[in-house]
């Protein structure tokens, strides 16, 4: 099997102590891997490590292709329109404007963003901004998306729309690691759910949802919630 994402005993550290892991995980092309866990378990740290943004990383990890990290906050530049924000990674790499715009419109179409491209971030809703943030990750031709709580703060409709957008991207062969607390929602598109606990426990449980129906998926989500509640220390 050719893994798009592979990590073995990945441990992220800060100030000399481990803050995330150990994590051993694999994902194949087009797979959606959901990571859940209590606050402070190290989910964000794990994603940043996979994105190559963490400073102290031990263990082995490899990503086949171009990863894009979609941070917990949008990090859209408020002085650029959503379209220019999405085009930004291309333009700084020297892609000609015309070609950049062609690709921006491509990913915008995929996520239903086209009517919003000329808006400034403050004029767009939270859900639209989130999608723009995802689009900015995708536009460089990323084939791996590392998403940190993309549903946080979105209303039901926006969550649904983003979920559909992500499902469509997976259909196009884009591999995703999705960190979320919204397990009922994530279970609708997850191929697998992994539970991350604080070090030294790390990635501790794995549930496969492939081929399951809606009700069974919710059942798995409930099970994961129970596990996190039990292990989360409350």
């Amino acid at each position, binding site marked *: 099997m050719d893994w798009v994402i592979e990590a073995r005993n990945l441990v992220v550290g800060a100030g000399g102590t481990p803050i995330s892991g150990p994590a051993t995980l694999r994902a194949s092309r087009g797979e959606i891997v959901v990571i859940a866990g209590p606050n402070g378990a190290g989910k964000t740290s794990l994603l940043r490590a996979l994105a190559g943004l963490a400073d102290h990383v031990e263990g082995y990890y490899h990503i086949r292709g171009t990863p894009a990290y979609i941070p917990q906050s949008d990090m859209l530049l408020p*002085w650029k329109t959503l379209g220019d924000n999405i085009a930004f990674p291309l333009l700084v790499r020297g892609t000609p404007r015309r070609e950049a715009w062609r690709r921006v419109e491509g990913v915008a179409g995929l996520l239903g963003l086209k009517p919003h491209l000329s808006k400034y971030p403050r004029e767009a809703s939270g859900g639209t901004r989130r999608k723009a943030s995802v689009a900015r990750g995708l536009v460089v031709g990323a084939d791996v998306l590392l998403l940190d709580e993309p549903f946080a703060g979105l209303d039901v409709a926006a969550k649904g729309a983003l979920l559909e957008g992500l499902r469509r991207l997976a259909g196009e062969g884009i591999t995703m690691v999705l960190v979320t607390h919204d397990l009922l929602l994530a279970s609708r598109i997850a191929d697998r759910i992994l539970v991350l606990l604080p070090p030294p426990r790390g990635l501790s449980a794995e549930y496969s949802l492939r081929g399951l129906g809606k009700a069974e998926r919710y059942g798995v989500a409930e099970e994961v919630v129970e596990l996190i509640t039990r292990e989360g220390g409350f």
Partner: protein
Amino acid sequence: MGQQGAAREAIAYTLALAVILGVWQAAASYSHLLPGVPQALSFLYDNLGQAGWDTLITLENTVAGFTIAVILALALAWAAMLGGLVEETVKAFNVVVQSVSVLVWSLLFLIVYGFTSRLPAMSVAAATAFPIMLSGTLKGFELSRAEYGELSRMLGLSKTQEFAHILAPGSLPFLVASARSALGAALRISVVAEAFGASGGIGYRLWLYYELHNYEGFMAWALLLVTLMLVLDKLVLERVEAWGRRWTG
């Protein structure tokens, strides 16, 4: 600002002006030295040509000094981005410059450049505007970095790209806000240096009229200076600041 807000602001300024002129007029009726408002206004009207020249000189001094300050502040803020000792030194330098009194700057530059030169007024304006500009720029850079530093890393921007695309636009609101107060301060302070020297300008004329016991002239030029300040702030600086903040909030 809406139309209603603008109207209210105009009324507020008119009221404030009326109060100040009223107090002045009242004081004038008790003092045999202080001229009344009408006398000062008519003196100004009779000497409009002179007023125009002085205004021009003062504006030139101020703007020249301000421009030097902006260039210096940007250069040093850019250097401070290197971090470490350089950053600490730039900040310390700023505090030191800030703690030198205007009186000292004025006399110092007069000693250096001579009494008939316009350089002292320009330099004092620069020395006043500089710390304000540098503080604002440093703050803008720091906040933009805190907010968008991760994005620069995610996209692998070079230092130059980070500056051009993130730090410069990100700190623009801080830049224009500090430019507004720096230019105002430069104008108020440059006239002090003009007063000590002999190279013309509103400050020079204020001092001259005072020495000649021409108090009508003195009050007229004081009025001129206030008007210049207000016009500059309301018609130019405020608009520039609003432009720099257009995407915030």
